[in-house]
């Protein structure tokens, strides 16, 4: 499926959810759907997206937090599945945009094309709900589901086409993005 269309569907239905993105194409996809103060884009710190999401979800238990990252970024955070399952936040959803490749570095094949399935790994770890989606129609249903309360963390793998789309670049000034995000929540910037 088309990654930009899939991400836009989820974000159009976010209803105030806070969004954290993994480095590379997921940051571009979220930015392409519309730059917002309540997006936190990572440009590095590979393996950090899901865990930034966990810390944010724990600090803001009344808000939903959606992490949108890629298969390569999540592979570097394999242990985060265990840490998040044990922490058991009820307001954290992980979306893994899975093209089965390392798209930023020359489209080398990743583990997810060779049998590593994050939905099954997260289910085995104890996530409240997991699934693998292959069509935009399924994403429409997921967008509605994400609005519902969950009994624990959820993880959804979206199988997307392996292609490099024109980049839509979020601000690279990490301090600016941090302060803009905190101001959105009414927090002091320093």
């Amino acid at each position, binding site marked *: 499926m088309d990654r930009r269309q899939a991400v836009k569907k989820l974000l159009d239905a976010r209803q105030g959810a806070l969004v954290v993105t993994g480095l590379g194409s997921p940051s571009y996809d979220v930015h392409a759907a519309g730059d917002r103060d309540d997006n936190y884009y*990572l440009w*590095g710190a590979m393996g*950090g997206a899901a865990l*930034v999401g966990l*810390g*944010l979800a*724990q600090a803001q238990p009344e808000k939903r937090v959606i992490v949108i990252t890629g298969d390569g970024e999540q592979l570097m955070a394999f242990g985060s599945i265990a*840490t998040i399952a044990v922490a058991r936040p009820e307001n954290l959803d992980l979306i893994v945009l899975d093209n089965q490749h390392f798209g930023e570095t020359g489209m080398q094949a990743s583990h997810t094309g060779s049998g590593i399935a994050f939905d099954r790994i997260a289910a085995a770890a104890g996530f409240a709900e997991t699934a693998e989606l292959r069509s935009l129609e399924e994403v429409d249903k997921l967008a509605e589901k994400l609005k519902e309360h969950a009994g624990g963390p959820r993880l959804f793998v979206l199988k997307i086409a392996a292609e490099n789309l024109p980049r839509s670049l979020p601000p690279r000034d990490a301090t600016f993005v*941090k302060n803009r995000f*905190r101001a959105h929540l009414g927090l002091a910037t320093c």
Partner: protein
Amino acid sequence: MGAAEAIKPLSEARTRDLATDWPIALYETLKAAGVQHMSYVPDAGHSTLIRLFNEDADVRTNVLTTEEEGVAISAGSWLGGKRSVLLMQSSGVGNCINMLSLPVQSRFPFLTLVTMRGEWAEFNPWQVPMGRATQASLEAIGLTVLRAETGADLIDTVEQAATMAFDADQQVAVLIGQRLLGKKKW
């Protein structure tokens, strides 16, 4: 928690015998600094602090599979308005280096307390290389590194490090000397 461990405000925490009671005074110091969130990879030297935080209903704690997870969690916690601290042993510092680019480049307040191995009465030679590299590695990625060798020095150091981190957006590691922790018993 026993009566002897009743929590005291910071001013009274300083009346404790810090040569022996520094772990509970450390907990009181972090509470007084407004810490409401903690992540850890266990270490014997942090065991009292970990227990006190885990028993505290006002503090969210996370047990990690590897230390760099806590660097990212701490950043997320600050994004959401909570002060977080990361506890680890010196061997875990090497796991964290690239993830520390997140607080350094984004200027997230970051406070970690690192119990040292491999530097004083160490019986395990495998602890020595990372123990030797701990301070240099942290400084190379851009952290401010402070050390404490006595209980009283540790409480002073952590109190001001928390101010530097949370009020001045600095990234600070406090190394707790193995000489203070004592020889590992097993």
